[in-house]
């Protein structure tokens, strides 16, 4: 048992180390990328072979054009057959390049779509098993960014980069090879401007990884500022401070703009020089001057000169793609590392040999808990509580005392940092999570209905429940008639045509718990948000739900739980009193005082 706990406390040892040097980080990123791309590697290889063939085909028209020129320039009338053959070669070569490269790109694009879906599924499956604290430490926007934007960032390196990269190498190499075969000086001529480009580019790329990192951080800031701004605007407007809230957003955007400007502007000049060095006009100029010289010196024929010029012009076109590819690859690698880290987030440890709970007694033995995993302020400081099977135990106490935390531990939203919590004699950490939820049901304080049909919401815990079972649960939760009155009945969609009041939503959530039909039930301030008009119905529904189960209820109104088998008064992370209503009243302690306050409140109301 202790080993489990230790693992819990130092789960992310290597992952939380201070950021290593950029080089190691780049290596980690590459490794992460390679790992994530594994499922589509085969497809990518095939596409790359096609891309190589397609790129080589791009040279065919130029070779054929030389043939055409030779046919015309030879003394005597041109040979019609040779001319037409050359013409068709030119046309065909061009077409072949388009078709083959297009095919390669289509293959990688399909692979990309497949990979994205695969990664999203993996991510969701993984996040479903990490400790719940992971979610409370992050905004939902961050999760969305990982599932959508980070995954999307891989698009370039899957769908474009492999094909373009091969083309970017094969075409120049084949072209220069061909020129060298004609005359080595022509090959050199085609390469003359490249060093300029390479030098400028290398200079530009210094510190690129960190900058991209900063840019991502800036973008993330805008992203969360936007979410914050848009979802908070309603409240902010009512305080006449729309402008102020807007400022956070505007500042994030302005900072990003400033950073972007400072980073890119100096780089832009160099980029312009680099791009010009391999741009068509400059290459053309160099090639013309060079070939004029070579022909004048008698080293090459004029036809070779023409081929030399045309091929020289083609060589650099793909190199820009190489440049873009590199920057895309960096973006993707950074995203890949984030995804990889996310997928490596430690999950709640799963039992090696899961055990089935024997019965449904809930036992807390010396339970300690802190949200930050052991070193932070303890929320629970040694809770001992025994809830025998089929009994109702109520937790009462001031807010912030730790009642709700106890309740969440039973459903293993978190793992205890000390002590143990057992259901049916088995530590919850030794129960298969899929088994645990069939034993423990939960009615939460903040009712959350999901965007989907009412039927889907109620069936959440038991997707295979029949319509009859569904309707029975809703009848028992006193919500069946209300659902039938909705435009599409059980198929009405929450938030669209199923606009439910707080109390109605509450009853749907009770129906959900009824249908799940778990022997252990945790009720967390379940009536807190009920609207009074439907209070009686909710109460009936809850009574029905509680009957015959092992119930742990976080209670607000003391009068509702006077009949509980046991009432435990929680204060400051400890149980300060426990017993039946009568015992506690007789003891004249905390509970008795609370009861007196409660009664006087009721009297006020009369």
């Amino acid at each position: 048992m202790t080993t489990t706990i230790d693992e819990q406390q130092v789960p992310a040892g290597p992952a939380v180390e201070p950021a290593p040097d950029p080089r190691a980080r780049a290596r980690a990123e590459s490794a992460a990328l390679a790992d994530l791309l594994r499922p589509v590697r085969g497809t990518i290889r095939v596409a790359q072979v096609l891309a190589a063939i397609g790129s080589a085909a791009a040279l065919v028209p130029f070779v054929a054009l030389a043939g055409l020129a030779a046919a015309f320039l030879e003394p005597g009338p041109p040979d019609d057959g040779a001319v037409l053959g050359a013409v068709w070669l030119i046309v065909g070569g061009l077409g072949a390049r388009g078709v083959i490269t297009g095919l390669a790109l289509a293959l990688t694009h399909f692979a990309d779509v497949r990979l994205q879906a695969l990664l999203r599924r993996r991510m969701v499956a993984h996040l479903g098993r990490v400790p719940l604290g992971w979610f409370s430490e992050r905004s939902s926007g961050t999760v969305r960014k990982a599932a959508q934007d980070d995954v999307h960032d891989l698009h370039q390196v899957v769908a474009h980069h492999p094909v373009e990269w091969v083309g970017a190498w094969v075409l120049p190499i084949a072209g220069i090879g061909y020129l060298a075969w004609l005359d080595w000086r022509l090959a050199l001529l085609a390469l003359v401007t490249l060093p300029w480009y390479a030098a400028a580019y290398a200079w530009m790329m210094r510190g690129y990884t960190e900058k991209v990192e900063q840019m991502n951080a800036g973008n993330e800031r805008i992203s969360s500022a936007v979410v914050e701004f848009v979802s908070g605007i309603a409240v902010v407007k009512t305080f006449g401070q729309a402008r102020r809230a807007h400022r956070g957003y505007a500042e994030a955007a302005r900072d990003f703009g400033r950073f972007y400007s400072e980073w890119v502007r100096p780089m832009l000049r160099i980029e312009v020089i680099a791009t010009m060095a391999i741009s068509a006009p400059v290459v053309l100029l160099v090639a013309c001057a060079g070939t004029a010289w070579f022909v004048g010196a008698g080293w090459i024929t004029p036809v070779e000169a023409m081929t030399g010029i045309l091929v020289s012009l083609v060589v650099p076109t793909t190199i820009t793609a190489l440049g873009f590819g590199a920057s895309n690859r960096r973006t993707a690698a950074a995203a890949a590392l984030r995804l990889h880290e996310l997928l490596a987030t430690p999950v709640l440890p799963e039992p090696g040999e899961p055990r089935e709970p024997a019965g449904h007694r809930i036992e807390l033995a010396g339970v300690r808990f802190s949200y930050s995993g052991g070193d932070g302020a303890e929320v629970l400081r040694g809770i001992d509580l025994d809830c025998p099977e089929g009994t109702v135990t109520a937790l009462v106490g001031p807010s912030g005392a730790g009642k709700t935390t106890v309740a969440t531990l039973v459903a293993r939203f978190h793992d205890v940092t000390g002590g143990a919590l057992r259901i049916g004699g088995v530590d919850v950490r030794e129960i298969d999570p899929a088994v645990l939820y069939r034993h423990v049901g939960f009615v939460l304080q903040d009712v959350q209905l999901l965007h989907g049909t009412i039927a889907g919401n109620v069936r959440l815990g038991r997707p295979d429940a029949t319509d009859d079972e569904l309707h029975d649960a809703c009848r028992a939760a006193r919500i069946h008639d209300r659902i039938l009155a909705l435009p599409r009945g059980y198929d009405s969609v929450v938030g669209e045509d199923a606009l439910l009041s707080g109390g109605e939503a509450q009853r749907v959530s009770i129906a959900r718990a009824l249908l799940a039909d778990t022997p252990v039930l945790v009720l967390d301030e379940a009536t807190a948000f009920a609207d009074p008009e439907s209070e009686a119905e909710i109460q009936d529904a809850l009574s029905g739900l509680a009957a015959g189960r092992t119930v742990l209820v976080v209670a607000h109104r003391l009068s509702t739980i006077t009949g509980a088998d046991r009432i435990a008064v929680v204060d400051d992370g400890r149980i300060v009193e426990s017993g039946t209503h009568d015992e506690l009243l007789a003891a004249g302690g905390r509970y008795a005082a609370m009861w007196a306050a409660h009664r006087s409140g009721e009297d006020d109301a009369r």
Partner: protein
Amino acid sequence: MISDLLLILGPQHRRRMFGYLAWVTGFGVLQGLATVLLVPFLEALLVGDIAAAWTWTGVLLLAVVLACVAYHVQAMRGFGVALVVLTTMHERLGDHVSSLPLGWFSAERVGRLSRLVTGGTMMVAGLFAHLLTPLVVAVATPATIALAMLLFDWRLAVAAAVCAPLLWLAFRFAARWVGRGDELDDAAAVAAGNRVVEFARAQRVLRAFGRGAGGYAPLEDAIEDQRRAGRRSIWLATAGIVAGGFAVQVAFSVLILTGAFLALGGTLDPVRMIALVALAARFTGPLAEVGDYAGVVRIARNDLRRLVAVLSEEPLPEPAASAARPEPGAVELDRVSFGYQPGTPVLREVSLRIPPRSTVALVGASGSGKTTVTRLIARFADVDAGTVRVGGADVRDQTTEDLMAQLALVFQDVYLFDGTLEDNVRLGRPDATPGELAEAARLAGVTEIVRRLPDGWATRVGEGGTSLSGGERQRVSIARALLKDADIVLLDEATAALDPENERFFTGSMRALARRSTVLVIAHRLPTVVGADRIVVLDDGRIVEQGTHTELVALGGRYAAFQESRRRARGWRLVPARTPTPAATATVEESP
């Protein structure tokens, strides 16, 4: 697309945009001219006239230098415009969104907007350098070359002219298909993104019902839908690109075949023909790129369109200056009718006058229109008929700032910023003194929360921070309202049942608020209802009863029936006492 950009930029930045476009076009033309010089150069070279070849190289040098200058200028200007667009876009979007009526903000809109803004940022940043410049060049250069061809041989120029409409059509189709695919992609991504947000937010519920580790079908379906949309989008894009590529291929073939036949027929100088074919080979490259870029441009344009669509949402009309408010603290609804959707009225001819400093309790079944009344007073939306007056003046004749300055809202869904607890309370009045802050906190019971939190007032709360319970959030919200000290308080009680601690603070706060302000409360708690100066009972969008507690109970109508059911509810217990004791039994009997 340019017009969308101009819309985002606003009139004051038009010149910048056009200046940039002029320079890019200039570069494209110069690059075209440089390419055209290849023809006389090759002609000279192929016939062995080296001297002439050098002369043409000199001319080429001049064209290339000019092209380089133009390229540099356009790159710098393009970057400048990109930065302006970036900042302007965020500023205008922020301004505009803050002016939209509160009814506009739905969960789906919020999701779409944030995706748009984050995605849009990167899109705009790369738009000029990586999209507009290549695109304009890819059009200007071939156009220059095609025109120049006229100088060399009119028949080839005619052939080129014949191909132009074909190319244009093909590119249009290509762009449309790619754009349509992108729309599919985008819609699926938004849907899946919203599902992911839900997955993250509803994690507790999902786990409680085994949908954490067990898989959550709607999200998986959304991912699958996104995959399908992705595949369809690829088919569409492929079709588009094939069409574009095919068109370029045809155009090139027509040119070269025409040239070859003319040369074979002896009506075109073979040397010139070869030089022109070389030129044509240079000319299809950029053209094929138009096809590639047209699709990407379409995608960017879709993004821009969505931004422009948000910018063109109508805000509620507002006067430049507010009308005089002769009766501070008074609220009046004068024959107000309203519905969120046409044809389904939520309020029908509601008339209600609340004098300054009185307390009115709104009661009624859910869906009776209670919340709508408070929302209309705060002008979340405009009435369909009738008038809402606050401080004695129509809310439509007041600026948002002036209207809101009179109101303090305590609603059920308390939104806490991702900031410190203090920031959240101070939102009520940023310039409040520490004393005032402490007093409001004491009354509302926020002091107890401060004491409990690890960093006290400086604890971060809200999304991504320490979460507060529902009762605690409402206390924060009440503290805000107390601090604001507004003429009118609109309060939606979260719950009928408070634990003793919350009950104590709530009662205290209510008293303090009622002493200084007009209070309109959607009442759920009995003490609030009973203590109100007047109780208004709403049913199906109409006021059916009003009066004091005693009057209404005596009336024996809806209110009396409602009281009766409340009394029954209070006797409820989760579980009946297992071993009934005299004390426990007594409780039940006491509650009538």
